[in-house]
C-alpha cells in the first residue's frame, strides 16, 4: 500500500512539472506567436502539434466508433463493458485534439470559420466539419453517463430515442475523419517519401485507426483495472486481442501489396533515416500481430498488454512518419520540435490521463465485472463472439 502511495506521488509530481512547463510554453505561444514557441518554418509549416496532437490523437480515439459499431450496430453485447471507457477515451481525445488545434492554428480565434466559409474541395474543410460534428456526437454519446450519475431520467429517455441514428452518424463521421487525415497528404506527392506516399493513404489510415482503437481499449482496460482495483475482463480482452490480430493482418497485407505494386521495396536498401523509421514502424506492427495469433499470448495479461502497447506505438510512429519524418527530405529541411512544442504536447497527454482518471472515479464508466474469471474458465470462453454474432 505504501509503495503504491509513493508511486502515485511520483506520477503526480511528474504531471505537475509537465503542466507547469506547458503553462510557460502556453505563455510563449500567446505572446511570442508560433515563431517564439515552435521550430516551424516556411519550408516546414506542420510539426509536432499536427503530427502528434492531431493525427495521433484522432487515431487513438478510434476505439469510440469501433466499439459503438461492434456493440450497438453489430449488437455484440459481450463487448459492452469496454464501450463506455472507449467512448470516454474518444470524447476526451477529440476535446484534446481541438485544444491541440487551438495551439497550432495561427488564428485560433477563427476556428469556427470553416463552418460558414465553405470550400468543399478542401480536405481540411472536411476535417474541420468532421471534428465539429463528431465531437458533438461523442458528447451526446457520453451524456447518458452524466445523466445517469445525477438521475436525470427524462433527458436520458430523449437521448435513447435518437441513439441509433446518432450512432450510425458517429460511425460515418469517424470513417470520413480517420480517412481524411490520410487524404490530407495526397496533395504532397513530391514531398512525401515514397515508402509512405500512396494513393490509398485514406484507406490505410482508416484501417489502422480501427487497430489503434482496439489496442487502446486493451491498454486502458489494463490501466483502469490497476488504477481502480478492478478485476481485468480478461476473456473479453482476449477476444479483442484476436480481432486486433485480424485487423492488423488485413492492414499489413494491404500495406505490403501497396508497397509491392509501387515497386518501392528497393528503397529499403538505402541507408537513410526514412529506411530505419519505416523498419521501426514495420517491426512494431508485425511483432504484436504475430504474437496475438497465439492463444497463450492472449491469455497472459502482461503479454496482451505489451502487444497493445506495441500496436499503439506502431500507429504513433506511422502518423509521425507520414506527418513529419516522411516530408522532411522532400521539404529540403530538418525539423526537431522546440522544447515548448514538446511541453504542450506532453501537457495535453498528461491532462488526458488525469481527466480520464477523475472521470472514471466519479462517473459510472466501468460496469462491475459479473464475477472474477479464473484461467480455467478463460480457456472455455475462447469462443469468439464475432464469429457467433
Amino acid at each position: 500500500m505504501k509503495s503504491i502511495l509513493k508511486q502515485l506521488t511520483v506520477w503526480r509530481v511528474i504531471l505537475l512539472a509537465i503542466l507547469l512547463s506547458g503553462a510557460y510554453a502556453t505563455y510563449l505561444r500567446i505572446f511570442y506567436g508560433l515563431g517564439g514557441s515552435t521550430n516551424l518554418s516556411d519550408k516546414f509549416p506542420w510539426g509536432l502539434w499536427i503530427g502528434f496532437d492531431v493525427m495521433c490523437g484522432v487515431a487513438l480515439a478510434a476505439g469510440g466508433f469501433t466499439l459503438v459499431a461492434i456493440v450497438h450496430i453489430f449488437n455484440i453485447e459481450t463487448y459492452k463493458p469496454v464501450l463506455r471507457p472507449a467512448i470516454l477515451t474518444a470524447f476526451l481525445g477529440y476535446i484534446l485534439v481541438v485544444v491541440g488545434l487551438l495551439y497550432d492554428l495561427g488564428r485560433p480565434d477563427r476556428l469556427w470559420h470553416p463552418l460558414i466559409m465553405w470550400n468543399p474541395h478542401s480536405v481540411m474543410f472536411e476535417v474541420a466539419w468532421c471534428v465539429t460534428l463528431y465531437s458533438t456526437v461523442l458528447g451526446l454519446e457520453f451524456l447518458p453517463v452524466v445523466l445517469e450519475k445525477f438521475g436525470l431520467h427524462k433527458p436520458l429517455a430523449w437521448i435513447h430515442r435518437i441513439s441509433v441514428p446518432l450512432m450510425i452518424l458517429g460511425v460515418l463521421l469517424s470513417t470520413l475523419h480517420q480517412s481524411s487525415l490520410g487524404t490530407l497528404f495526397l496533395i504532397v506527392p513530391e514531398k512525401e517519401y515514397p515508402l509512405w506516399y500512396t494513393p490509398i493513404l485514406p484507406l490505410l489510415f482508416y484501417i489502422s485507426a480501427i487497430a489503434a482503437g482496439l489496442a487502446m481499449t486493451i491498454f486502458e482496460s489494463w490501466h483502469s483495472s490497476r488504477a481502480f482495483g478492478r478485476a481485468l475482463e480478461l476473456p473479453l480482452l482476449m477476444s479483442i486481442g484476436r480481432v486486433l490480430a485480424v485487423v492488423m493482418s488485413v492492414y499489413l497485407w494491404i500495406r505490403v501489396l501497396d508497397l509491392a505494386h509501387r515497386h518501392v521495396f528497393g528503397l529499403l536498401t538505402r541507408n537513410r533515416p526514412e529506411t530505419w523509421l519505416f523498419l521501426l514502424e514495420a517491426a512494431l506492427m508485425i511483432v504484436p500481430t504475430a504474437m496475438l495469433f497465439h492463444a497463450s499470448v492472449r491469455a497472459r495479461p502482461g503479454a496482451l498488454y505489451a502487444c497493445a502497447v506495441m500496436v499503439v506505438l506502431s500507429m504513433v510512429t506511422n502518423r509521425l512518419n507520414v506527418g513529419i519524418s516522411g516530408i522532411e527530405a522532400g521539404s529540403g529541411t530538418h525539423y526537431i520540435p522546440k522544447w515548448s512544442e514538446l511541453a504542450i504536447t506532453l501537457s495535453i497527454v498528461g491532462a488526458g490521463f488525469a481527466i480520464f482518471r477523475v472521470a472514471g472515479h466519479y462517473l459510472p464508466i466501468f460496469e462491475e465485472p459479473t464475477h472474477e474469471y479464473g484461467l480455467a474458465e478463460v480457456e472455455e470462453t475462447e469462443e469468439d463472439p464475432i464469429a457467433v454474432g
Partner: protein
Amino acid sequence: MPKAILYDSTLCIGCKACEGACAERWGLPYSDKVAAEEKISAHKLTAIETHGDKFSRRLCMNCLQPACASVCPVGALQKTELGPVTYEASRCMGCRYCMQACPFQVPSYEWDQRLPRMRKCDMCFERQSHGKLTACAEACPVGATKNGDRDALIAEANQRLAEKPDQYYQKIYGLKEVGGTSVLYLSAVPFEQIGLRTNVPAEPLPETTWRVLELLPDVVSTGSVLLGGIWWITNRREEVACKEGRRQ
C-alpha cells in the same frame, strides 16, 4: 485571356529592381540587408537568386490549378479569371495547409506575429485588373520580366527559343508543371541548375485529393444504408429471440 509573367534568366542582370518595386507595392521595408536575402519570406515576396553566373527569380507561380486554393478550408485563396491567385487575410485561420501543399514552397507565414497572416505574391492582381503591368515587370530595366497575356508570352518564349537555339535550354518551365503555371521561365541551362524544382508532377495537384473527396457522397450513402441495415437485422434477431422466449 489570363495574364502571366515571363522571366528570362538569360536576360536578367541581377539588379533587383523587381524586388524593390515589389516591396514598394506591398508597403514592405526594403534595405540592403533585405536585398541580400536570397529567399522569399513574409517580408520579401520576390527574390533574385544567384546561381554561379546565372540569375533566377522566385515568386508565386500563380498556378493555373493552384494546390493552395484547392486546400484552403475557408476559401481565403482564390484563383481569379485574370490569372493571379489572391489571398483574403480576413478569412484565413492559419492552418497553413496552403504552405504544406504548395509544390514550390512559396507561401510564407508571419511566424513572429501574434495575429499572423500568410504572405505571397499575387501577381499584382489590383494593378493588373486596372490594366497596369505588375510592379516587377514595370520596373525591370532589361525586359527579363515581362507581363502580358499567357498565350502571347508562350508564343514569344517559343520564338526566343527558335531564334537563339544555342543560348537557351530548349524548354519553357511552367508550361506543363503541375498543369501549368502563370509564371514561365526561360534559362540557358537545365532548370534545376537555377534552383527550380523539376520533380513536380505534370498533373494538377488538386486532382490528387479530389479523386478521394468526390467519393464522399458514395461513402455516406452506402455507409448509412449498410450500417442501418446491419442494425436492423441484428436488432430484429434480438426481438425474435425475445418473442420466442430464448432471451428475456
